[in-house]
């Protein structure tokens, strides 16, 4: 049995500037599989549609992961499956974005805050307006699959300890991050497959959640553990409230998204402080 939760809240700096929430989180659940996502549309002036970008990213992950059959694990190697999923997620996102560009031209209101050069660049490469990060995970066939691109966090949980998924990235500092709108997005989109038997669950979040804690140890002790504990004890409401509070008051002003999926009934010993 899997217990899961996703929650997104608008950041106070967005509320103040009357900007829409650019994060998006979603989930899909049936007897076979559980998929959770947390995606963060970029905040800069030129990213006028990144709220849609993050939604498309989330949808792309759910679609690509959702289409995976059990038989694939017997027919193909892990690497082949991962590469195939990377391509599928990218193509799915591309297709949604391109359709949106085609059906809905940029309005005057959307480009009102941009200067001439920014408008020019936007016209040259409209995909950029949808730039977003992507974090997604699926629990299926006793495995965890995880897709990650850009900043934010993706962790495996085991006995109260967080294990980062995805390689070390020294280029992601301040607000520099890889993006789905990049020309070489495929290179930076990572998909991994892990055995689920030894793991308690998976935790995904956007950078608005993790940045206030500044280092992994802090994040693990002061956020991850208490939240996992609450999930295990059915306190979904409290977690949602805390995320909302992070967004509108106690965070760093950025939008926040959390996506969490765990086996129900894991030993709580590691999660109590």
């Amino acid at each position, binding site marked *: 049995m899997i217990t899961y939760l996703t929650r997104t809240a608008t950041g106070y700096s967005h509320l103040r500037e009357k900007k829409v929430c650019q994060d998006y989180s979603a989930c899909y659940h049936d007897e076979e599989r559980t998929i959770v996502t947390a995606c963060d549309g970029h905040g800069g002036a030129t990213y006028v549609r990144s709220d849609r970008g993050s939604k498309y990213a989330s949808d792309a992950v759910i679609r690509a992961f959702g289409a995976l059959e059990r038989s694939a694990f017997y027919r193909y190697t892990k690497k082949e499956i991962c590469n195939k999923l990377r*391509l*599928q997620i990218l*193509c799915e996102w591309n297709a949604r974005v391109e359709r949106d560009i085609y059906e809905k031209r940029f309005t005057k209101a959307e480009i009102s805050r941009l200067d001439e050069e920014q408008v020019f660049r936007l016209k040259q490469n409209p995909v950029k307006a949808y730039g977003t990060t992507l974090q997604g995970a699926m629990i299926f066939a006793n495995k965890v699959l995880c897709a990650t691109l850009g900043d934010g966090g993706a962790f495996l949980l085991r006995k109260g300890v967080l294990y980062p998924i995805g390689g070390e990235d020294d280029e992601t500092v301040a607000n520099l991050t890889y993006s789905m709108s990049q*020309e*070489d*997005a*495929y290179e930076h989109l990572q998909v991994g497959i892990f055995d689920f038997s030894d793991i308690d669950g998976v935790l995904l979040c956007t950078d608005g959640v993790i940045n206030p804690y500044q280092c992994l140890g802090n994040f693990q002790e002061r956020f991850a553990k208490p939240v996992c504990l609450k999930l295990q004890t059915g306190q979904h409401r409290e977690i949602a409230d805390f995320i909302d509070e992070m967004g509108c008051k106690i965070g760093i002003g950025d939008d926040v998204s959390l996506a969490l999926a765990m086996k129900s009934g894991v030993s709580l010993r590691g999660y109590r402080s």
Partner: protein
Amino acid sequence: MRFRKNDTITIDEKERLVVEDFLGDGGQGEVYLVSRGGEKYALKVYKNEESADFRYNLKNNIDRGAPSEAFLWPKALLDFDDGKIGYLMDLRPKNYASFVSYLTGKNKFRSKQVLLRWCIELCTAFKRLHELGYSYQDLNDGSFFFDPDTGDLLICDNDNVTADKKNLGILGKMRYMAPEIVRGEQMPDMHSDRFSLAVILFMALCLGNPYEGERLKEYDIIDEDAEYEIFGEKPVFVYHKTDRSNRPIRGYHTSVLRRWAYIPLYVKEAFHRTFVDGLQDRENERTTELEWLKVLTKYRDELIACPYCGHEYIVGFSEKKKYDVCPLCGKETKKFCTLHIGRNAVVLDLGKKLYKNHVDKYSARYNQAVGIVVANKNNPALWGIKLMLPEGVEIKDGENNVKMVTGSGVVPIVSNLKIKFNENIIGEIR
């Protein structure tokens, strides 16, 4: 390995070859570095016994000699005691890098001009090969080498060059083979060579394969069956005008997306003809070497370099979109004079060259320079064309003043200047 270091091989009881090193292992044979009387050569030895036809073909090729200098051609045939054969050839000079290393990004051409020079050499070499009645048949990226600075071409692996329409059993490499060959409907010949030539040109100019696009995502894994479908059964050109189902994937096929946009229309048309129309009509609709040469020299003639960032791009004579600013840095495009000779329009930027084919309509020397645009040493704002001709030319300016310029002199670049190269060829600078 058949031979070890310092082994001696005797040919015809006259010559002795000393094995110095093992150079590599191909599918068909092994290649060694040998020395013969102080000179070094490469020796290829076939692993298996080859058919009599094969040996005959090889001997024939050796006797006829290389079609041109671009071919690293077998020089001498060797028969070994155990019935196996091999041949000697010159060593590949160190300055050449493999085309594969260009595709992977390891080595680059010094500039787009140099890249085009290489492409033109490639077409010229193939034209020559086909004129002599040969066909290459095993065209793939591993056979080509380039000099990153000069764009010189070297073609190796000439084992499978045979007379057109004869075949030695080699089909080629999947992604380069013409679809009818993949499907087994035809044996390789000159027309399938032309298809493969177009693939190599596409890869050189766009750094991608012309049939690899969105369709990739339909397959869980690109195995032989998938390749058969993508390259043989139902190939769809990535920039097919009406069928958009196989466009390059944004975020994945980065280079193709970036580069195709800036290729001139007439080059795109040439690719489209071969990769779309050329599927149905293999004999008439595949762009020939001569057509490629015309198209590529036109492309080269149009290139200019941005004085601010060095980016090379076309002036865009035949384009719908304007190249008023540099596509890379956005600064305004400088104004240039253009030399019109016959059908050629050569944009006169520093370093641009005039070639033999510009001044001689029937010449096939597309890479022999007869003039180059230089700046006056004392006044860099003044430009001229430094000639490299055997004879001088007559120039006439806008006011009908006539002057002679020697074969190694400099023609000043001014508007409305007419240059008489000979009775038939008069160029005008505008």
